[in-house]
C-alpha cells in the first residue's frame, strides 16, 4: 500500500525557471521549453549533463516532444518521457521526477511543463463513446458555473464575494513577470462580461502558451554538484488520486481534492493549519473557495468570508494563489502544475519580491484535471 518514499530519501527543488505565460504566438514549443530549462539550470547552478532523467508534462503537443527540445542542451542520452494527465500534466511530471530521485534511480531529475494551445483537442471523456443528454453544452466554464450556483445557494454567498477571488488573484498576478494577465482589476471590471452563470470573463482563466521547469535533486545530488543547499526546498509529499463515486449532485472536484489532500497531509505529517502559501487550481474563481475548504483551511461555506477579510491575501494567514493563480498567471495546461511548484519554491526561499508571503515555510500545490484526477504536493523549507 501507499508508502512514502519521499520520507526515506529526501527530494529537493533546487532549480526553477519559466518562459512567461502568454497568448499563443509564433514561438515554437522548443523555444518555450528551452527558455524555461536553461533558466532552471542557471538557477540551480548546474550544467545540463548533471540531469539524469527528464519528464515533459504536456497535454497538447503530441508524440515525442521531449528529445527534440532537450537535445539542444546536449544529447546526453538520458531517459525522457512525455507525461499527460490533463490539466495536472505538469504536476505529474514533478511527481515522476521526484519518484525517480526518491527511489534512488537518479540524483538529479527534470520536470518540464510546456504547451501551446490548439483547436480540436482530443479528450478522453468526450471520446469514450458514452452518450449523455448534455450534447456538448456543458463545457468547463459551465461545469463550474453550476458548482457556483449550488455553492451560492447552499451558503448564502453573493456572486460579488466569489468575484473577489479574481480581484485578489489579478492583484497578485500584476506583480508576477511570468503571468499572462498582469493588470490589477476593479470589481466592476471583474463582474462585467458574463460567460456562464455567475462566471464572467475575468473569473475564467486564460489558456495560452508558456513553459515552467523544476529541477529536483537528492542530498547526494546536492553534494555532488555543489548546489546551494540554503536555497533547496524539500518536497515532503506527493499525492495523486482519481475520482470515485460520490453522492448525486456532490461536486466531484472538491470531493476528490479532499481525499487527495488527506493522502498528502498524512505523508508529510503536517496539517492545513501549517500552510503559509497555497497554489490551487483556480481555473474559475469559484474553485478557489471550493478547494480551500476541501483542503481543510476552513469549514464549508466560510472561504468567501476569509477572502473578504484578507486571510488569503499576501501577508494574511495563508496566501492563496500568490502567483496570480490560473486566473491571472494563466493556465497553459502542461506548464501550470510545474509552475505552481516553482512558485511555492520561490515563496519558501523568500525570493518572491513584491508578492512574497512573509516567513513562508510550508506550501501546497494543487491541480485537478478532467478525468478526473487530482495531484497535491507539499513543500517545506527547513
Amino acid at each position, binding site marked *: 500500500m501507499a508508502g512514502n518514499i519521499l520520507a526515506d530519501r529526501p527530494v529537493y527543488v533546487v532549480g526553477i525557471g519559466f518562459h512567461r505565460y502568454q497568448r499563443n504566438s509564433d514561438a515554437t514549443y522548443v523555444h518555450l521549453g528551452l527558455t524555461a530549462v536553461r533558466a532552471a539550470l542557471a538557477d540551480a547552478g548546474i550544467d545540463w549533463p548533471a540531469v539524469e532523467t527528464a519528464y515533459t508534462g504536456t497535454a497538447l503537443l503530441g508524440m515525442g516532444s521531449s528529445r527534440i527540445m532537450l537535445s539542444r542542451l546536449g544529447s546526453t542520452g538520458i531517459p525522457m518521457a512525455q507525461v499527460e494527465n490533463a490539466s495536472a500534466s505538469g504536476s505529474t511530471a514533478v511527481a515522476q521526477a521526484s519518484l525517480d530521485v526518491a527511489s534512488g534511480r537518479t540524483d538529479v531529475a527534470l520536470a518540464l511543463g510546456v504547451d501551446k494551445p490548439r483547436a480540436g483537442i482530443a479528450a478522453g471523456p468526450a471520446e469514450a*463513446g*458514452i*452518450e*449523455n*443528454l*448534455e*450534447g*456538448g*453544452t*456543458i*463545457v468547463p*466554464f*459551465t461545469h463550474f*458555473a*453550476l*458548482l*457556483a*450556483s*449550488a455553492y451560492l*445557494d447552499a451558503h448564502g454567498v453573493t456572486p460579488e464575494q466569489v468575484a473577489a477571488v479574481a480581484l485578489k488573484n489579478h492583484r497578485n498576478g500584476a506583480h508576477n513577470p511570468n503571468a499572462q494577465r498582469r493588470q490589477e482589476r476593479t470589481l466592476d471590471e471583474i463582474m462585467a462580461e*458574463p*460567460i*456562464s*452563470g*455567475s*462566471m464572467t470573463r475575468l473569473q475564467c482563466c486564460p489558456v495560452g502558451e508558456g513553459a515552467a521547469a523544476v529541477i529536483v535533486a537528492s542530498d547526494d545530488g546536492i553534494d555532488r554538484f555543489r548546489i546551494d543547499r540554503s536555497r533547496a526546498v524539500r518536497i515532503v509529499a506527493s499525492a495523486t488520486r482519481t475520482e470515485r*463515486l460520490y453522492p*448525486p*449532485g456532490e461536486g466531484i472536484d472538491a470531493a476528490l481534492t479532499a481525499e487527495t489532500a488527506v493522502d498528502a497531509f498524512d505523508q508529510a505529517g503536517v496539517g492545513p493549519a501549517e500552510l503559509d502559501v497555497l497554489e490551487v487550481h483556480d481555473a474559475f474563481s469559484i474553485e478557489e473557495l471550493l478547494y480551500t475548504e476541501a483542503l481543510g483551511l476552513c469549514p464549508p461555506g466560510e472561504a468567501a468570508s476569509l477572502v473578504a477579510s484578507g486571510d488569503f491575501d499576501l501577508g494574511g494567514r495563508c496566501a492563496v494563489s500568490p502567483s496570480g493563480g490560473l486566473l491571472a498567471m494563466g493556465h497553459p495546461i502542461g506548464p501550470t502544475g510545474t509552475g505552481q511548484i516553482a512558485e511555492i519554491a520561490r515563496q519558501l526561499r523568500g525570493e518572491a519580491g513584491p508578492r512574497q508571503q512573509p516567513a513562508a515555510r510550508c506550501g501546497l500545490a494543487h491541480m485537478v484535471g478532467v478525468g478526473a484526477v487530482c495531484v497535491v504536493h507539499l513543500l517545506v523549507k527547513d
Partner: protein
Amino acid sequence: MRVGDPPTIVGHECQRCGRCAFPPDPYGCERCGAGVDELDEIELAAAGVIHAIATVHRHHHARPETPFTVATIVLDDGIALKAVLTGDVSAAAIGSRVRGVAVPWETADDGTEVVDLRFEVADIGRGASG
C-alpha cells in the same frame, strides 16, 4: 431517452451491486466492475429537482442559441444529470421540480425527426409526470 408521453430516460441497473446509472454504460459498472452483460436496461422517470442552474452566454456552437439555461437535476430515482432547460426558464430555480419534454432538434437525411430531451418546470396544476 425513450420518446413517449411523457418521455423517459434509459439508464442501467447492475445485477451484481444494484447501482443504477445514467447514461447507460456500454462497458461495465463503475461501482463493482461487473461486465456490460450484467447491466440491465432500466427506464427512469424524466422527473426530478433542480440542484444547480446556470444561464450560458457564450457557446462554441451555433445551437443551442445563447443565452440558454442548463441545470444539474437530481432525478427522483436519485441519479444526477445535466440537461438544457426549455419553456419558461425564468420560473426555474434551485429546488424547482422539473420534467422531461422532447423538443424538436433536426430532421435527419432519411426524414427522421430527431428530438432533444430537455427539462421544463413542472406545472403542478397539470399533474403529469412532474
